[in-house]
């Protein structure tokens, strides 16, 4: 709604009137916290509506958008005044303040402040106050979060949606009226969307083959829907099926008819369709199995005569290319923007900050970057925890910040960047930073480190001590996050999806947690090792190197055999003992490969019988009961059809090392 005329002569009037409305809005709202009536909310709504109209007339798009979001929220609250709780009131006040900022900027001829985050917050809140829903508890992600399209924040649970196809009998005297009657009857069960052809066509009796379809969003059971239709004479129910919920249509009183005319292809927006997340998992499984099957065919080809093999291999190569392409497409379909997680963080940040008496500005960037759905799902809790951690333990209370010459309002930045085949997610605060010496001292106190080792520990690794289970540097234990327990879980979750966690911290200046994540989880590069007749896979990412030596040549430290690796000594273990599988008897003077791997508790050398090479494989998740087995990260099937377990190297050695640590 750009202004067509010179608006400058109205500016004075705009500023004074808008200010009046905003002042009134703020005052009335604060008064309301005593007792809410629909009339009072009406009044708030009217003020907000007036500001929107005035800003629109002046051509202030940003202001109009903000006022519009506020109006939507108030409109929603109007239907259920009890929902105007303190959280909602706070956001409304924030919006009023921000609008005041816009008015001031307009008056001073300065650029308007950016209110995108606030608008997003208003929208999220508006959606969460859907009629008939209970107030949402603060942000936490359900374990099986549904896939959300790239547009808009995640919706709260909607009633199921039905695709209803109806046929009006050709003998009907007034098919249009019949159709409309059926439509009206359905509308008594819930909200209707996407009537095809449009409702005006239906009313006019323009029904292709006598049928039309409409989507019904209703919590009524299937039987009620079909019974309702059956009560309309001359109308038959052709089909009734559940559809996945579509993106929200804001307060659709009168649904718009679908466009009956085909649109020009070039103008068509990208079409999306919702797919059950399990279906995506199944696609991935199938694509993975196709790859394995292809490898199997190639394996069979090896037994053929040279002449036949050439033609077979050619075909297998083509098949492999196609399957690889399919796999890539499936992976692409699984890509989900990080915003699925971050959209809810502003609200969470505000809640945490208020509970902890902090003032926080949360700056989000790069939320449009996409990752595999499985990784995004796994990250929801860790990211929320990092945010909590930053606010709770990082950012100081306002008084303390003032004393240190910092602005009272702390800043937490959450940025997401794509870096070649990885995604970097950083959570950075400008708080007090971590005390490396204190961390080391605690670790020594808890017996996790010797004093000597602590002294030599580089800062980078010392900071990671904060992720050790049970270690906390918070001066007080809070209800929000005991740092140790939570950080341990964060590190584990990040590593489970193939990522790494890095911490940098400057005392007094702040802390940055950096998550480096793979784009997808499905492919993993393995070092295959032989143990007797068994084969195991070790993720190459966790392998530091291989040393070939005899058991007899190992040194001992406190009765534990150790291996010289570079400048360090690492404990040496039999992989068969670690896994509790029967090992082959070995000659202590025979040369064996020792694979040096990085575990959570440091490096360990694992003695194996043979190195069988590297392979890039499709990792399958373990299902019950295999997921109960300690030390396994997944399983894959090689071209030969043999199943190979992939070891969870990071946690392979934990029980043994814990016992060893007890001795020192």
């Amino acid at each position, binding site marked *: 709604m750009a202004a067509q005329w010179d608006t400058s002569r109205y500016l004075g009037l705009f500023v004074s009137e808008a200010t009046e409305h905003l002042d009134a809005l703020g005052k009335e709202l604060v008064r309301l916290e005593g007792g809410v009536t629909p009339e009072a909310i009406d009044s708030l709504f009217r003020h907000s509506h007036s500001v929107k109209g005035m800003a629109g007339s002046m051509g202030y798009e940003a202001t109009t958008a903000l006022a519009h979001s506020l109006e939507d929220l108030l409109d929603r609250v109007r239907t259920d005044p009890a929902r105007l709780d303190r959280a909602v009131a706070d956001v409304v006040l924030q919006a009023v303040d921000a609008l005041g900022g816009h008015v001031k900027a307009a008056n001073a001829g300065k650029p308007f402040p950016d209110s995108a985050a606030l608008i997003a917050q208003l929208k999220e809140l508006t959606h969460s106050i859907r009629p008939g829903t209970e107030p949402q508890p603060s942000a936490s992600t359900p374990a099986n979060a549904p896939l959300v399209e790239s547009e808009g924040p995640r919706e709260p649970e909607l009633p199921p949606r039905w695709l209803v196809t109806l046929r009006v009998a050709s003998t009907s*005297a*007034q098919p*249009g*009226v019949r159709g*409309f*009657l059926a439509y*009206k*009857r359905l509308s008594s069960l819930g909200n209707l969307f996407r009537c095809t052809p449009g409702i005006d066509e239906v*009313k006019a009796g323009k029904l292709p083959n006598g049928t039309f379809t409409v989507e019904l969003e209703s919590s009524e059971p299937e039987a009620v829907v079909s*019974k309702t239709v*059956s*009560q*309309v*004479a001359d109308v038959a129910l052709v089909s009734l099926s559940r559809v996945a919920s579509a993106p929200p249509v804001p307060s659709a009183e009168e649904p718009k008819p679908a466009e009956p005319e085909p649109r020009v292809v070039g103008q068509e927006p990208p079409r999306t369709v919702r797919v059950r997340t399990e279906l995506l998992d199944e696609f991935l499984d199938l694509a993975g199995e196709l790859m394995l099957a292809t490898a199997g065919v190639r394996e069979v080809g090896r037994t053929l005569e040279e002449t036949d093999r050439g033609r077979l291999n050619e075909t297998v190569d083509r098949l492999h290319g196609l399957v690889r392409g399919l796999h890539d497409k499936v992976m692409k379909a699984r890509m989900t923007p990080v915003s699925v997680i971050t959209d809810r963080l502003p609200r969470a940040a505000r809640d945490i900050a208020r509970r902890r008496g902090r003032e926080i500005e949360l700056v989000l960037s790069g939320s449009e970057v996409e990752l595999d759905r499985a990784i995004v799902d796994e990250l929801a809790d860790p990211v929320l925890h990092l945010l909590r951690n930053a606010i709770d333990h990082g950012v100081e209370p306002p008084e303390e910040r003032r004393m240190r010459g910092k602005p009272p309002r702390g800043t937490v930045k959450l940025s997401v960047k794509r870096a070649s085949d990885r995604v970097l997610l950083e959570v950075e605060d400008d708080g007090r930073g971590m005390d490396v010496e204190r961390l080391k001292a605690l670790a020594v106190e808890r017996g996790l480190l010797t004093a000597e080792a602590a002294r030599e520990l580089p800062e980078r690794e010392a900071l990671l001590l904060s992720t050790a289970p049970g270690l906390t540097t918070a001066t007080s234990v809070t209800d929000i996050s005991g740092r140790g327990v939570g950080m341990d879980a964060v590190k584990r979750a990040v590593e489970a999806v193939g990522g790494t966690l890095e911490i940098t911290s400057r005392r007094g200046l702040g802390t940055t947690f950096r998550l480096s994540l793979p784009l997808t989880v499905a492919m993993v590069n393995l070092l295959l090792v032989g143990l007797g007749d068994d084969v195991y896979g070790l993720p190459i990412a966790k392998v530091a190197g291989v040393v070939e030596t005899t058991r007899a040549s190992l040194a001992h430290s406190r009765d534990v055999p150790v291996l010289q690796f570079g400048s360090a000594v690492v404990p040496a273990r039999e992989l068969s003992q670690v896994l509790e599988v029967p090992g082959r008897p070995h000659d202590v003077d025979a040369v064996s490969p020792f694979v040096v791997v990085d575990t959570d508790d440091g490096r360990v050398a694992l003695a194996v019988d043979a190195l069988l090479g590297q392979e890039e494989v499709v990792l399958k998740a373990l299902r019950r009961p295999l997921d109960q087995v300690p030390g396994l990260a997944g399983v894959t099937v090689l071209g030969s059809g043999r199943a190979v377990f992939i070891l969870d190297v990071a946690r392979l050695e934990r029980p043994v090392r814990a016992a060893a640590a007890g001795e020192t």
Partner: protein
Amino acid sequence: MSKRVLVVDDSVFMRDIIKDIFAAGGFSVVGEAGNGVEAVEKYKELKPDLVTMDLVMPYRNGIDATREILRGDARALVVMCSALGQETMVMEAIEAGAVDFIVKPPRAEDVLAVVKKVLGES
């Protein structure tokens, strides 16, 4: 017990046809009205299971009468009687809350089919 019907039409001729259809179909016509005002009064008095309502009548048309009846009893079942060419009015009546409609001149099987559906009897 047979269902109780109120027949509303300004034409006595039409009322008789409709009454006969109901009688043959096993319904009992408990009352009749010749205009919208009378229809609302009779409805309150008789509380019938179903009303058939002519669209165009003197004093108060069928749409207004339907609206008024539903205001008093949201669960009232009102079936409109319309002629061909009155589609727009029928749709207005449906918006007002009428549950179905029959087309005049009424054929017995059509009327009974619609009414039974509305009463959930088929």
